[in-house]
């Protein structure tokens, strides 16, 4: 049985507060002061989680965060399949992010689709010294010659670009003109900008606004006839097919999805989105900017939803349907009814195996809160959570709609803190990223990667929920966790905290 369910809330809070004090003791004074602001125990009724966020990471502490380039190339732009995304600068960044994010798509790779190719300008010393604009010009020409079916090009700036004073905007403009108005998008997502991936999302959103939307002329109409039921999926990167298992539900309720941002997306879809009647927004963190822009400029409302786990799916389907007429509202009910037997069967099968198990999370954009409902549908409890690059509006949403009283909150957690927290709280499952996976598995704690779905997925929608439930069961109830101690060394583990 999990610790959390056998202790009173007051005890849990006291323990968590003590834990925070304990980890802070390892830091030099100045660092302890800064880190203290990012750690808290959630108090029910508060409007946010009581932590500071979106601040600079502290040097040397082993932050889990990435950079703005990762937020732009890795998250927002990379999945747009019919465009070529140049990792502009030295070879590394593009190499490490090559194909690792599992943004599923369909296309003829290398001919009309390019998601799993690594295009780089592979900067050499002379490019740093003399600037890379000439090279960029040539790269665009070579792309046009060798990949003639590309529908556009983006330039994803790596650290050096902004430091050596290159003018990638001028190059983009000139080349676009030369190639008959071709979409060429310079993105200033150098890794040193901002404090995490987050600013990269914002910069990438702005680049869509300035270099895609602003170029769409009234006469460049979409090729389809608009209907009153047109929506766009915003902020779903189709990891393991998430956007597909979401799209199918929206279509089944009678809506028409005219664009996916950006998983399995295309330039035509980006351009057509201003025709949507509603933007449905999954990852608020990475795409709220463009949603707000479309609201202001084109009057398109947007609506946050959550397709993790049946409770939130039902809530979300109804919420989305609320923007439309009875036909859609009935459609939503029809979808809910259709999948209820699947939901019942999944819960009947897995809930008994997972009931009462505790989870600690540390992930990016929306997942530190969005997946909580799915765990709860399986009878599990999230006892600690935190955002890699959340802002205060994320923590507000988390506090108001998701976490329970006494939950341990850790923003931009450091390797040291996370390890200590898990060691002391001993959750039944940790959900975080590849860098954390093996640390916790070595400790004998079941783990699931909650960025890449540990190479599984989809986890969105009803189809995804079945997979999610199976995966969590597989992680927690794997027989291997009983084998981590050699039998001759087996000693009863001294529980660090009184329980059971």
């Amino acid at each position, binding site marked *: 049985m999990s610790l959390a369910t056998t202790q009173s809330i007051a005890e849990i809070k006291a323990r968590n507060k003590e834990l925070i004090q304990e980890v802070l003791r390892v830091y030099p004074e100045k*660092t302890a002061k800064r880190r203290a602001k990012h750690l808290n125990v959630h108090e029910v009724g508060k409007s946010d989680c009581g932590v500071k966020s979106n601040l600079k*990471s502290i040097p040397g502490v082993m932050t889990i*965060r990435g950079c703005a380039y990762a937020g732009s190339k890795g998250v927002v732009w990379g999945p747009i399949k019919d465009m070529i995304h140049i990792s502009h600068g030295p070879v590394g*960044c593009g190499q490490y992010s090559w194909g690792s994010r599992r943004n599923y798509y369909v296309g003829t790779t290398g001919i009309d689709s390019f998601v799993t190719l690594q295009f780089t300008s592979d*900067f050499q010393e002379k490019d740093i010294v003399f600037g890379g604009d000439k090279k960029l010009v040539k790269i665009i020409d070579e792309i046009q010659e060798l990949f003639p079916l590309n529908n556009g090009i983006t330039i994803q700036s790596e650290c050096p670009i902004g430091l050596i004073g290159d003018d990638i905007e001028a190059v983009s403009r000139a080349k676009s003109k030369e190639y008959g108005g071709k979409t060429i998008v310079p993105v200033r997502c150098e890794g040193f900008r901002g404090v995490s991936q987050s600013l990269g999302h914002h910069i990438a959103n702005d680049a869509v606004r300035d270099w895609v939307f602003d170029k769409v002329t009234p006469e460049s109409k979409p090729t389809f006839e608009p209907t009153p039921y047109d929506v766009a999926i915003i902020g779903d990167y189709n990891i393991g097919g998430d956007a597909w298992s979401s799209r199918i539900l929206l279509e089944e309720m009678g809506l028409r999805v005219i664009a996916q941002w950006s998983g399995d997306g*295309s330039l035509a879809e980006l351009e057509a989105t201003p025709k949507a009647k509603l933007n449905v927004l999954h990852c608020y963190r990475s795409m709220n900017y463009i949603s707000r822009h479309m609201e202001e400029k084109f009057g398109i409302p947007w609506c946050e939803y959550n397709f993790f786990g049946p409770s939130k799916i039902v809530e979300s389907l109804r919420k989305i349907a609320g923007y439309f007429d009875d036909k859609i509202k009935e459609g939503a009910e029809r979808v809910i009814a259709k999948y209820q037997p699947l939901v019942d069967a999944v819960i009947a099968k897995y809930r008994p195996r997972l009931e009462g198990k505790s989870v600690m999370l540390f992930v990016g954009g929306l997942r530190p809160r969005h997946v909580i409902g799915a765990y709860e549908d399986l009878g599990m409890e999230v006892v600690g959570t935190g955002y890699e690059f959340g802002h205060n509006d994320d923590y507000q949403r988390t506090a108001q709609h998701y976490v329970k009283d006494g939950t341990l909150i850790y923003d931009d957690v450091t390797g040291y803190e996370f390890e200590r927290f898990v060691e002391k709280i001993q959750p039944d499952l940790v959900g975080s990223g*590849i860098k954390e996976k*093996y640390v916790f598995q070595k400790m004998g704690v079941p783990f699931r990667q909650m960025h890449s779905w540990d190479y599984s997925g989809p986890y969105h929608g009803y189809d995804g929920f079945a997979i999610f439930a199976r995966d969590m069961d597989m992680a927690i109830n794997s027989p291997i966790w009983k084998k981590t101690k050699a039998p001759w060394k087996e000693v009863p583990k001294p529980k660090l905290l009184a329980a059971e």
Partner: protein
Amino acid sequence: MPQSAEHVLDHFELFRGPEYQQMLANKKKMFENPRDPAEVERIREWTKTPEYREKNFAREALTVNPAKACQPLGAVFASVGFEATLPFVHGSQGCVAYYRSHLSRHFKEPSSCVSSSMTEDAAVFGGLNNMIDGLANSYNMYKPKMIAVSTTCMAEVIGDDLNAFIKTSKEKGSVPADFDVPFAHTPAFVGSHVTGYDNALKGILEHFWDGKAGTAAKLERAPNKKINLIGGFDGYTVGNIREIKRIFELMGIHYTILADNSDVFDTPTDGEFRMYDGGTTLEDAANAVHAKATISMQQWCTEKTLPFIADHGQEVVAFNYPVGVSATDEFLMALSRISGKDIPEELARERGRLVDAMADSSAHIHGKKFAIYGDPDLCYGLAAFLLELGAEPIHVLSTNGNKAWEEKMQALFGTSPFGQNCHAYPGRDLWHMRSLLFTEPVDFLIGNTYGKYLERDTGTPLIRIGFPIFDRHHHHRSPVWGYQGGMNVLVKILDKIFDEIDKKTNIAGKTDYSFDIIR
């Protein structure tokens, strides 16, 4: 609705069902503004032609699918090979997230490394404060015995001076004055991860041997009988280093493995997370100056380190990722010559077993054509082994190989009748390789995980040897060096050859012949 609780379909099956296929087809037709399929087909065919190859090879600026990474990755890889050493990369933090992920995805192990998290203000004012705070934090939190500093391209472009920064940090009390903080500048726009390995290793040796950046006396070399060994950047480091140690012990040689990361990338799951494990002790790193000789298993990973060591009066010997019979022979004979110890009968028996296995299976490999890509030394070692097997390494491509590498490869080809039609391609990428495979097809491709895209496009079966290997598990635990390692490589190649024969002969009612039970 295909999904069920009884039989949960995951992405492999789910999206292949009619509901999703229909949905995806509609999406494409209605909203993606797709290209005319005939046009896609035409271009696809065009990319297979010699004409396309010519244009492709005329590329001067664009790189597509390179087989190399950047310097700091190699620096981190080398640094964790020292006892309780925390790699500290000075610059932007995103890079460090990438190195850690990259190494973890290959080894399926934790990868610990910190960043000085420089941001926009540091770009303007320099990263000194980041270094001061960063060293203090790392030292207090992670209790390392040594912090090995390298740089991302941001710190290099703005010109941060590591030597001065570390000195200042010590003055400010970030770490004790006598705490070891070796450093290396590792600009990502020069060389590749193998260069970074070289720079970092040299930085560490320089630190210990040449007076710790002016804070201690330089070591006086007092020659002993030990041999130092440097593995180089190697995806098989776990298996290889252990095999090398076994060989040293069999021969009774006293040795020091420099940058021994074979344990830290292979820690047990037993309830404890070991952030540090094994590694060359700092004492051994310092004492390595006294060794009789240093052997590098990878010339191109030690281009600066070896001359540095030679300058300290040692003999240095470099190999090119020795795989197979002759390369291992040469390696052992060099050990024997330097140490004065005989090669024990046990190793001779192992040699005989490898030769035996090669003889048994030679008929299946002889005359087969291969393409290889990877790091320069790896390419050389594998090509040499293939020549030994009577196979032809037709295309050997190394994105981080240079002119000198090309010459050395061509010289190797010249030594064998099987090398007559073989070519080395320095500085080329996997999109070049694609053209080579279409215009001059081979039977098999040897490379890392990214070779699977080439396999899909060209139909050339991929044998996974190299770095990174993300989509197969645990191969890095077995050696490819030594006679036993040669055996592992042989079996890997043979398995693929036999699988392919079976795959081509398994259509019931059509090819009932050739689907043999004995091969």
